């Protein structure tokens, strides 16, 4: 995001971002937690409320804009990124948040995902991944596991699933992260970090749909086992995890494996130090998954590249100065005229 801060906004609080619309998700839905964390974090960004825009597609998650007291657009299924792109082209000073789901963003919206990311618009994209279609009541999504039984796959899904983080890295995004809906410390820190990244930031949030896919992430996110089954990526830090932070990821060539520090001759120095500026490493690490590996969350990728809207604005400025005092009348008249009468 790209926000000018001013004094007036310093006093904003969470409440300023709560709209007058009743929140209508199922009780217990992970969406509540994400909403709360975002509302909590927005005041700290220093962006005036009127410069914040939330744009979504269609899905349970996409009802999000109604609940945040900023400018908002609940568009159509899969197209939120396209609206956001157009808006950024014409007003690059806005802080624009795109809220999407695994179906909205990766199934019907997959093409816009790919192209919006590669263009590096300065947008904050949050994808609520519940690995199911919530709003339409329980069909498989592109992130549903193979074999998953859903309303549309009663004998089990046969599609090989998409890993959103991987897809984002390959789409040449400049900031890619992942978090968990009820990770009350980590999630807001991700939101804040992404907000401060200039260029596209893409955050996948594992979100529990307690109605149609309850406990989809519990096998690693359950608070009791979380520290053993998840790993928090920290740029510049060794990739450690475990109750006692004594387990680490070690690379044999390009093959990652889990090792315990101090066992089998593995020392802290052997543990891979995470580098969020290397897309190849990010891609490799995005392949780590349950059950063989702890599931990584945190910042996968954080690189710099000029934003689309800045490059566009540059061209406009260059062309304007090149135009000099040629008027629009001059343009319309052209150079090849003749006169009658």
């Amino acid at each position, binding site marked *: 995001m790209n926000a000018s801060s001013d004094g007036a906004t310093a006093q904003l609080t969470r409440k300023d971002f709560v709209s007058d619309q009743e929140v209508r998700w199922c009780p217990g839905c992970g969406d509540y937690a994400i909403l709360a964390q975002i509302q909590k974090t927005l005041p700290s960004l220093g962006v005036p409320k009127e410069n914040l825009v939330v744009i979504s597609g269609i899905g349970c998650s996409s009802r999000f804009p109604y609940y945040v007291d900023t400018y908002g657009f609940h568009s159509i299924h899969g197209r939120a990124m396209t609206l956001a*792109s157009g808006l950024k082209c014409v007003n690059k000073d806005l802080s624009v948040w795109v809220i999407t789901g695994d179906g909205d963003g990766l199934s019907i919206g997959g093409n816009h995902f790919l192209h919006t990311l590669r263009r590096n618009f300065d947008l904050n994209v949050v994808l609520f991944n519940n690995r199911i279609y919530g709003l339409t009541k329980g069909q498989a999504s592109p992130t549903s596991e193979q074999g998953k039984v859903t309303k549309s796959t009663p004998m089990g899904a046969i599609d090989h699933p998409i890993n959103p983080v991987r897809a984002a890295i390959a789409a040449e995004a400049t900031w890619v992260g992942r978090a968990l809906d009820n990770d009350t410390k980590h999630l807001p820190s991700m939101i804040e970090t992404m907000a401060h990244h200039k260029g596209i930031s893409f955050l996948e949030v594992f979100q529990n749909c307690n109605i149609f896919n309850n406990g989809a992430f519990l096998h690693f996110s359950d608070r009791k086992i979380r520290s053993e089954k998840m790993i928090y990526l920290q740029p510049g830090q060794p990739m450690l995890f475990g109750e006692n932070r004594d387990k680490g990821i070690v690379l044999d060539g390009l093959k990652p494996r889990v090792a315990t520090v101090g066992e089998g001759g593995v020392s802290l120095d052997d543990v891979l130090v995470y580098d969020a500026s290397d897309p190849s490493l990010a891609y490799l690490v995005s392949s780590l998954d349950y059950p063989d590996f702890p599931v990584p969350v945190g910042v996968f990728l954080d690189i710099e590249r000029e934003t689309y809207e800045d490059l566009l604005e540059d*061209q406009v400025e260059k062309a304007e100065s090149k135009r000099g005092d040629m008027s629009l009348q001059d343009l319309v008249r052209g150079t090849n005229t*003749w006169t009658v009468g």
Partner: protein
Amino acid sequence: MAQRDVQELKSVTIRFAGDSGDGMQLTGNRFTDTAALIGNDVATFPDYPAEIRAPAGSLPGVSGFQVQFSSRDIYTPGDAPDVLVAMNPAALQRNLKELVPGGALFVNEDAFTKSNLKLAGYEENPLEDGSLTDYRLFKVPMSTITLETVKPLGMGKKEGERCKNFFALGLLYFVYDRPLEPTMEWIEGKFGKSPDLVEANTAALKAGYNYGDTIEAFQTAYKVDKAQLAPGTYRSMNGNLATAYGMIVAAQKAGRPLFYGSYPITPASDILHELSRQRGFGVKTFQAEDEIAAMGSTIGAAFGGAIAVTGTSGPGVALKSEAIGLAIMAELPMVIVNVQRGGPSTGLPTKTEQADLFQAVLGRNGEAPLPVLASRSPDDCFDVAIEAVRMAVKYRTPVIMLSDGYIANGAEPWLVPDLDTIEPIEMDFLTREGLGDEPHLPYKRDEQTLARNWAIPGEPGLEHRVGGLEKDYLTGNVSYDPENHERMIQVRAEKVQRVAQDYGPLQVQGPDSGPLLILGWGSSYGAITSAGEFMREDGIPVANLSIRHLFPFHRELEATMRRYDKVLVPELNCGQLSHLLRAEYLIEVESLTKVRGLPFKVVEIIEKSKQLLSTEKAV
């Protein structure tokens, strides 16, 4: 220059035809500019193959350019050529049947080789077998003379031959007594960086002219006098360029940046190309990944308060139609340009047709009305573009502007408008101060236009949410209330009806009532207008009218139609406007349809009119 007889002609239609690589579009355009410059009215029709390059000499590779120039107002590039320039056998094969009997036929004799004849499907050489005796045939060794001419300049064969189109052009200039200077200047401007080319092309041009002067065959010079055009400064203008300029001017009149989100598609791409070049006027073009993204980005830009426009052709509109529904629901101003082409599906993508009218007016899910305008000629595109933006902004609605391949690429002289005479466009953004103490109701409406309140992101205190679910009548919040839904459907429809209050008067040409009104829309304007004028000159009391507003119709349209015994509706489709008129007014209309990828000929409309008038009498 030898002394010649001079024969006055009212108008002449020339068709240049050759291989795609022969530069016929360029040749035609030069001829047109020169004719315009010396005061003729002109109209053109480029017609090129769908393939980028078909094999040289083949039938699908033939490219054509027709121009009519005249001493009177004309509205079409001519029904049939009086003169055909055929640069090779394939060009002759494809175009001969349209040449008027007795017409002049200039052929590049050198290209009539065995292999070229075979490629064109000729068993015998038509230049030899006496099959062309109905025409005034001029066999000219264009390649040979051109090569001879440029050889001394050090040009190779391949490059040298490329100049032969200028030779042909020079020859035609001689026959129709046109000056060479404008073309020479143009060559200078175009090839200035390569003096060789300037020299060679100029030499070929002159050689052609001199050839005419030398050879006995051309004793008569044909002269087409200046036309009586309104005084002013003119330039040549095609529909796509006029559309692009109209949008830029509209944005400037609104004081807002122009955003154009588009995905390339024939025949609309040139609008994108032109606008991409105008960043200097604050134009932001966005080549989207597909038409859906183009439409979505346009909605986003409109939400942000820009003058938001997208352009495409029929298949692209199909893809945009879901998002157009969202624009209708969000009640944001934007313009969707459809430069129509031959359908259905990919159809005949480089040919013209008017068959997307149903799609524009009725082609969406749910009750989703929006205004539909059509431009009737290249220059009209400029005015329609501005009217479309003005209407969109004033009524907060997406507007569809229909153009088509024929006017998109066709050129005609355009009286350059004084931009200062164009009224500003009021954006009318809501501000917190403007609202005073009143609460912010995003869907509260202006009483006269029914346009809703419109606050754009960045305006403090007016944060609000819009979207595609049905909205409450005032707050714009989501509402599932049955009565509210019906009320919203009605108010959206009524709002669109109200755009008609701003229409200018209907301009019927010819008698105010009578036996026949020829009623058209879009690009058939040219043929209809000429047909009307010709018949009235012959004392036949027909009237003609071309309507710009396809939805909603002009409020006086019904009364106007009912003043005539019969109404003839010519369209390049299977009767779509006829259908809409019948449904709206329960009025019987005669439909004249044509779906051949080609515009109407004046004579087709005259014939049908006369037929209707005679059955009229018979009754």
